[in-house]
Structure formats: structure tokens, C-alpha cells
């Protein structure tokens, strides 16, 4: 009878132990779950006993925080170590420089009322010669800058 009871108890305890372990999410499950999430695909996650370490590049600070809270909310995750870095901002688009033909046409329009000033366009650079008053030159320069030149070289211009 005693033996039967101890068998029973052992079986019962083993049953409880097995049962309590059954719903436990393994580290592999956590990793797989993160990897299969399309919004988390750009990060690297390693899980160890429910502690998830995140690395890789987040798009920005908000992305980093969102990912962390998303992973924290997953079943089986006890703790999140967030080692993600923030991706550097993309470099600005290169400056758009107009071609010489539209520049030449634009120059003709700008200088129509300023016959004492001449300008030519070559490889996007507008070279200005002749003479102008300071006030007129300001107007001309404002108009020339609007044509999207590479630069406006007025070193040969005389200001009266």
C-alpha cells in the first residue's frame, strides 16, 4: 500500500512537473516569432532563458522604442536588452544643376533690361562680366540664382 502511494505521488509530481513545463515558450520559439514578424525583420534578436537581446539598426528613436515594447509584450519574454543602434540619416539628395541651354535662355531673360551686364553659362557655372549698380546687381543675382546654376562667378563684374 505504501509502495502504491509513493508510486502514485511520484507519478502525480512528474505529471505536475511536465504539465507546468508544457506551456513554457522556448528561446527558439521567441526568436522564430520575432523573425517571422515583418515589422521586426530588420532587427537581430537572441533569446536566452526568456531574456531577449536586440541588436541591429532601428530607423529612428521611436522605432527603437516601439520594437522594444513589441518584443516585451510577447509571450515568454521576461526581459529585453535593447542594444539596437539608430541608423544614420540618409545623405541629402545632390543639388540639381540646370543644363547650359536652359541657363543661357534664362540669362537672356534676366539681362534683357541690363545691357551693361553680360553673362555666359558653361558646365552650369554662370560667369558675369560688365558693370552694374549695386542695386541692379542684387536684382540680377537674385534672378540668376533662381535658374539653378552650379555657381555664379561675378569676380569680373564691376560694381559702380
Amino acid at each position, binding site marked *: 500500500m505504501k509502495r502504491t502511494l509513493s508510486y502514485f505521488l511520484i507519478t502525480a509530481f512528474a505529471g505536475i512537473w511536465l504539465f507546468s513545463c508544457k506551456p513554457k515558450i522556448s528561446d527558439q520559439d521567441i526568436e522564430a516569432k520575432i523573425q517571422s514578424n515583418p515589422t521586426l525583420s530588420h532587427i537581430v534578436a537572441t533569446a536566452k532563458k526568456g531574456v531577449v537581446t536586440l541588436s541591429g539598426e532601428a530607423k529612428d528613436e521611436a522605432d527603437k522604442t516601439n520594437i522594444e515594447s513589441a518584443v516585451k509584450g510577447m509571450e515568454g519574454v521576461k526581459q529585453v536588452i535593447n542594444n539596437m543602434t539608430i541608423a544614420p540619416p540618409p545623405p541629402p539628395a545632390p*543639388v540639381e544643376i540646370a543644363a547650359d541651354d536652359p541657363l543661357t535662355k534664362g540669362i537672356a*531673360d534676366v539681362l*534683357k533690361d541690363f545691357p551693361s551686364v553680360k553673362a555666359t553659362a558653361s558646365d552650369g557655372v554662370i560667369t558675369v562680366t560688365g558693370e552694374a549698380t549695386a542695386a541692379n546687381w542684387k536684382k540680377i543675382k*537674385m534672378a540668376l540664382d533662381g535658374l539653378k*546654376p552650379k555657381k555664379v562667378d561675378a569676380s569680373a563684374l564691376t560694381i559702380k
Partner: protein
Amino acid sequence: MALQDKYKQLVDAATAAGAQVREQDGVLYIDGTAASGSIKDQLWDIYGQIDPNFLSGDVVLNVNVATAVAGARAKVTTETSNLNIRKGPGTDQPIVGKAAHHEIVTLVSKANDQWWLIRTDGGKEGYAYAQYLTPLE
């Protein structure tokens, strides 16, 4: 970055006005749309203080004014003369009419930043050089 130091005051003002500031091959490019004509004037004033007479050739400042939109009214701000109204956008295009000095016209649309399609209250319509048109605010 030396240019951005030289023109720091201009860069700061332009950035505050929402313009894009880029440095490329020794030239500082400032592009954008200012909320008003006075902000555009202010940027040019700052530029002129740092580089008197704009002769260094290291800045291209291209700022448009947000109020210059279709339907807006604009004043003809020529020196003294009438403003030519042309058939198309370019001084090579035939003149179809004239707007008087200080006349108020309607901005119909923009062919580009240089040429605007305008209509006078007298009903004349054609392209005029934008530099001589100041949008009313």
C-alpha cells in the same frame, strides 16, 4: 563645413524659414519657399551683410515666396516702365500686351519660377517675368 561657418547667420535664418541648406563642391545651396516676401528679403539682406555685393560666388540662394500661388493678386513692381505680357514664357516670345507700373494683376499659374501666366483686370492674359511681380500679402 567652412562655408556653413562663414554663412552661419544665413544658414540659421534659412533653416528657421524652412529652406534646405546643402554644401556641394565649395558652394552653399539654399533652396526653399519662404512664407512671405519679407522673409525672402531678410535672407538676402543677411547674405549681403556677410558677402557685400554677393561677389564671392560661393552661395546660390534660391528662395521662392509661398504667397505666389494661382489666384493671388500681384503688383507690377518694375522700376518705372510697363511690364511686357508675352505669348509664351521667354523674352523671345511676342509681346501681346502690357501691364502698367504698379498695376494689380491676377496670377493665373506659373510656367516656372521665372515666368508667370497673369491676367490684367482689363482682360489681357499672357506670361510676365516674375521678378517684376510682387504678390500682395
